[in-house]
């Protein structure tokens, strides 16, 4: 055993001497990982403590799984957790395909100028702050002056106070998110499409494929690995719904569908300075996210041979 270890370090020493330039190149990233990812993990202890900032992490007493028990006993937390999964799940179904479709549509555009113009137009919303987007959404959906309701009432339909109806929240949230992000997210698929060898299309043209057939039989299958990687990443974020935008859009009246883990943490943890509870909720989320990504990756590797690791 000892000889094995000695041997390992001896080899490592030789490697270091020989390839020190390579190791030097690796150093910044290694440091980055240590400082910004592994060192902060020390803070995860907070989830198992009755934490007081003044006493510090070391000075706060251990409470075991008490914080987790508090969370899982809390029906509002459970509801928030289920809401998170539902919103991300629906987002996955409805929002995930949109950038792919967009990218394919851009790719089909013949005029270079038209393509650049429309791409820029759909990228733009990404750069608008969520605060502004929420303001636009609230204005558009206003029951008295909002365009949507003006159209509804001119069609003889009832006006709907969308932002106070739990049934509508998911639609509004996911819909406006698509508007904001789909264009920007399509960039990665456009890059993937740009990587497809043009001779594949030429060959298909000679073989007699129509544009539609080329799209289905060449473009889509060729960007499938990219789609799968994006999907796995997305699944990892299934338990993650950013709280800024939700907080701007939700109302107590829509908590039933709108309250997610991050907003729960924001309300109870950060506003009430309960860092221990907030950390526990974060850790809980992370563990589930990891399990999901792991499972998704397993399945993908089996089914499609594409995987993250």
């Amino acid at each position: 055993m000892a000889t094995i270890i000695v041997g390992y370090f001896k080899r490592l020493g030789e490697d270091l001497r020989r390839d020190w330039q390579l190791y030097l190149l690796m150093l910044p990233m290694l440091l980055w990982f240590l400082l910004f990812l592994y060192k902060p993990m020390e803070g995860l202890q907070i989830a198992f403590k009755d934490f007081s900032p003044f006493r510090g992490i070391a000075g706060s007493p251990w409470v075991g799984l008490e914080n987790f028990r508090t969370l899982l006993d809390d029906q509002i937390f459970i509801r928030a957790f289920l809401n998170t999964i539902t919103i991300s799940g629906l987002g996955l179904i409805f929002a995930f395909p949109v950038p792919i479709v967009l990218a394919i549509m851009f790719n089909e555009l013949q005029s270079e100028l038209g393509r650049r113009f429309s791409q820029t137009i759909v990228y733009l919303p990404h750069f608008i702050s969520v605060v502004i987007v929420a303001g636009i959404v609230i204005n558009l959906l206003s029951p008295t002056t909002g365009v949507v309701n003006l159209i509804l009432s001119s069609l003889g339909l009832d006006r709907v106070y969308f932002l106070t109806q739990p049934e509508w929240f998911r639609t509004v949230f996911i819909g406006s998110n698509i508007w904001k992000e789909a264009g920007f997210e399509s960039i990665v698929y456009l890059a993937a499409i740009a990587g497809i060898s043009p001779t594949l299309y030429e060959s298909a043209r000679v073989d007699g494929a129509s544009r539609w057939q080329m799209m289905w039989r060449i473009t889509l299958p060729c960007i499938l690995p990219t789609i799968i990687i994006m999907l796995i990443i997305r699944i990892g974020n299934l338990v993650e719904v950013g709280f800024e935008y939700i907080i701007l859009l939700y109302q107590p009246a829509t908590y039933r569908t709108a309250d997610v883990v991050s907003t729960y943490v924001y309300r109870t943890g950060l506003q009430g300075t309960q860092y221990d509870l907030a950390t526990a909720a974060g850790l809980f989320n992370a563990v589930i996210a990891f399990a999901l990504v792991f499972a998704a990756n397993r399945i993908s590797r089996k089914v499609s041979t594409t995987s993250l690791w």
Partner: protein
Amino acid sequence: MRYIRDTLALLATCALLQTGSAYAEDAATKITDDPLELTIHFHFRDKYVYTEGWPVEKKAAEWTGIHVKNIASLATSNSRDAFNLLMASGNLPDIVGGDVTGGLKDDFIRYGMEGAFMPLDDLIEENAPNLKKFFDEHPIVRQAISAPDGHIYFIPYVPEGEFSRAWFIRRDWLDTLGLKVPENVDELYAVLKAFREKDPNGNGKKDEVPYFAREPIEAVRLINMWDARVSGSERYGDFMIEGGKVVHPWTTANYKTGISKVAQWFKEGLIDTEVFTRGARVREYMLGNNIGGMTHDWFASTSNYTEALKDSVPGINFAPMLPPKTVSGKRFEDSRRATVQPAGWAISYSNQHPVETIKYFDFWFSEKGRILSNWGIEGETYDMVDGKPIYKETVLHNPKPVNAQMWEIGAGVPRGYWAAYASEEQWTNKMALDGIAMYEKEPGLLQPEFTGVSMNSEERAVYDKYWPSLLTYMMEMQQTWVLGAQDVDTSWDGYVARLDQLGYAKVNEVMQAAYDRQYGKN
């Protein structure tokens, strides 16, 4: 009930005393002959820090010999974060203070008991005659800031004055429609209905919004008409004291009636359909477009619209009115100024000069200090007229609001000090002053304030565990009912059961225990 009467009596006494201006002697303001520098961390209202350069602070240093040097960084734009970071660093300056979202009272008490701050009781007793006098005269303040261990760990920012908000109505619309100011619920209903249907703005469109509101706390304020309260304090959804018992206003029978009636009024279009999503500029929108009829909001700011809009909305007269009588024939005003603000300052455990520091704190409660902290510098921002500080004309007629001018020189900032209502009065407009006078004249309008409880760590654990979700659920149901998504009568029992399931009884129990300990069981 006896308690409330006592408190009221006490308050009345205080009010008398305060006009008599019975300050302790402060002939010598010098605390040390050799100038002493104390460090301070004081980040407040998310964008200011305590500043040595303030003229007010310079004057205080000149008078006391104590120079405070700020160490809080303006790099963060969140006072709560700044405070928490300081506490986490464990490296505290001589003085810690501030005014942050959610308040610092609980933090001062909690960290005080953990050893971060010095208990001030003995220091005050021995070295701070002004503070001692103030607390003796205002036992409610002392009670409100006491920790579960009985100590005081911070000196608060103490506001003065009673009424904060009022009912405002378009009196010109009443005249147009030949109606008088509503005196009770039924008349109020009739007035709002008329606003809705009889086109008081005369544009031929049915675009009037009879009742609108700016803050969440005001959206359901009309439940007052059925003797239900929105909150026991200025905090939205706070507990209240009823007959010595801690009760949440949203669990009472009156609330059930009130919220169902408000839902009814909402359905009839008497309350703004978008009342929950309007946001902060609703008064500008509703009054500027000549469509809003009535609201409940701050005296001072809401009184400005009549003057400001007189050109664009001819004839507008948006003025305070007394609260209409409730269904039981009472009249009451739900809101009031806080007795104590959860802001101020404390002495950290590592301070080497606690005596000098408490004397410095005490200075601000002296007559000189109080005038300095409210009116600023004599000869520059105010003059003494008949022994009273009066703002200079240049200050009163500056386009900038007086309070903003004061903040710039370091007056009126939330250090541990005693605000003087007299200073505010000098720059409040006539409509608001008349309104306040009208409210003051009406007996028994003011409701007792729930000044909060200081919980020990076991009580705090129970409260922290259950309360956030309880409040979430109660707010959710409140809106759900008002918007008509659920019927109050059919869902009330389920609501009560769910509250119990979510731990209402447990929270109530620890609140009561803490209350009894803090305020005495009388």
